[in-house]
């Protein structure tokens, strides 16, 4: 028994030192002035238009990339599990998803700048060979949709990785039972498959949302400070340039914890409603 507890020690120490203590530090710091006196000023400072709009654009990008990631990832996972694609596609796709879902930060930003930037390879090929000027059509990589597109590169594979086992869990007999009882394909999906998958779908959506909401390295490497999403505003407050106000930074981080907490609360509530039928 004592040995079993010993096994828990290393990671618990990690979690305490690098997750729980910093989080507590942030939460406490959000309600303190630089000299340590309690205050609500940092949190109240969040309610200024520039910061509120940063939160709003962060939430929108996170929701958009999570929704699109869920839809596209689901379609791909369904294609390899239920769609009857050749079996050999599954292994490589899942392996690639495992790699791509962790592909973020400077390399990802560079990859997209090199392909879809103003002078990116794809941009130039489209322009020179096909006469399509995507920037002339309004596309901009350093924009809401640009960043959403870049995030999709890790959101879609993450969805594939998480939802594939859930789709594998759909029993063939459920479909056959529904079919022989007279149900059409869409009826089966609406009445049986989607309700069964809903807890997994909600869970994955919540994860993708948090994944995008907290992503800073990719956004910063890609847009610098040209797109004001919360992680970038936060970064500006703590990295030590003219804007530096670490305690506003703490408040910004605290705000992110609150948003993620609300998103998770909604997820937990929805999940409880959608899985009354499980143990």
């Amino acid at each position, binding site marked *: 028994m004592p040995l079993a507890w010993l096994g828990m020690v290393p990671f618990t120490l990690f979690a305490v030192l690098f997750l729980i203590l910093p989080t507590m530090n942030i939460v406490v710091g959000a309600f303190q002035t630089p000299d340590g006196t309690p205050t609500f000023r940092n949190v109240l400072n969040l309610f200024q238009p520039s910061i509120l709009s940063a939160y709003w654009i962060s939430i929108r990008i996170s929701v958009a990339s999570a929704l699109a990631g869920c839809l596209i990832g689901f379609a791909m996972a369904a294609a390899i599990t239920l769609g009857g694609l050749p079996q050999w596609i599954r292994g490589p796709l899942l392996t690639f998803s495992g790699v791509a879902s962790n592909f973020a930060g400077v390399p990802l930003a560079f990859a997209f700048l090199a392909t879809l930037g103003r002078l990116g390879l794809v941009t130039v090929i489209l322009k020179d060979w096909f006469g399509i000027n995507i920037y002339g059509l309004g596309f901009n990589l350093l924009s809401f949709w640009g960043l959403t597109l870049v995030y999709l590169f890790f959101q879609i594979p993450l969805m594939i990785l998480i939802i594939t086992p859930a789709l594998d869990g759909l*029993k063939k007999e459920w479909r056959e039972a529904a*079919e022989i*009882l007279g149900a059409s394909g869409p009826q089966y999906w609406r009445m049986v498959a989607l309700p069964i998958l809903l807890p997994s779908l909600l869970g994955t959506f919540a994860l993708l949302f948090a994944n995008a909401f907290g992503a800073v390295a990719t956004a910063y490497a890609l847009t610098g400070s040209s797109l004001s999403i919360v992680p970038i505003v936060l970064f500006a407050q703590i990295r030590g340039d003219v804007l530096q106000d670490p305690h506003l930074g703490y408040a910004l981080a605290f705000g992110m914890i609150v948003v993620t907490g609300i998103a998770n609360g909604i997820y937990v509530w929805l999940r409880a409603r959608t899985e009354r039928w499980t143990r």
Partner: protein
Amino acid sequence: MSFLEIEHLEKSFGSVRVVKDFNLPIEKGEFVSLLGPSGCGKTTVLRMVAGFETPSTGSIRIDGRDVVSLRPNQRNIGMVFQSYALFPNLTVAQNVAFGLKVKGVKVADRTARVAEMLRLIGLEGYDDRYPFQLSGGQQQRVALARALAVQPQVLLLDEPLSALDAKIRVSLREEIRDIQRRLAITTIFVTHDQEEALSISDRVVVMNGGVAEQVGQPFEIYNRPSTRFVAEFVGTLNLIEARVLDRDSGRIGIGSREASLGRPLTSDRLTLGIRPEALTLGRAADRDMVLEGRIDDVHFLGSVIRIQATVAGERVMLDTFNRPGTPPPAPGQAAEFSVHPEDLLVLEGERSP
């Protein structure tokens, strides 16, 4: 013409023919079992009737209508699966009502039908339970109610009892048979359990290697198997090699003994099949074929005593009823066994005469 007519049905997966020239007419209200070892094609036949597999050739007609080109949801067939296949996200009542709901039956009619079905399977008051709150036997009864709620023309049962424990299996099979009789619904039951098949069927189809080896009533299948496979697969069978001494009179030699089958034979060697209950320990007055052997082992099972013995070099098994005044024989002792010639299954080559 029969109500359900399966003619020249064939199914191949790639180069493997899993069902070969399968023919089976089934009368309305009849309960027919497909019995065979795994891989014999019985489930494939059932799935072709359901519409989940497309036959390579052949026809399936229900009430005169060829259904081969129809999708499963157009065939009006009920099916119960081995794994129950209840929808886990729906309550018992919603599961039973599923088929009615997708057909657009009004809520009031649906509710009445669900209540009727739950009464039929003895699960009144379970409407709001979810499948995980039911035992395996209860889940399978709900699956049966769900299949019957839509008033199908044909009921297909795909090893519905295999996942249940022994006691429930026996009670549920009787319940299924009882409901089937009351509703007079034409039923095909797939099983690899011969006792199940023999006990509840009007007729049994014994399948082997994609072929229907024999179709007949349980009594006939058990007592008059038409092939060596059927004789060996259905029930326990003691096999004893015999020499033919005189083909015309049917005299044979078993070990050092001789006996007469009282009918002409066609080959020089044959195998005698003897059911355990047809073999009697000792010399019975009305049995005229006597075999010598040695008792190997004795299992006292309460009402029945199962004896293992060696006769003419072959291991055999026989069952005798327990009698308080007669203690079981001791292992190792020499013994005589007798069998009535009419109870012998004579297996000459592939087919018995």
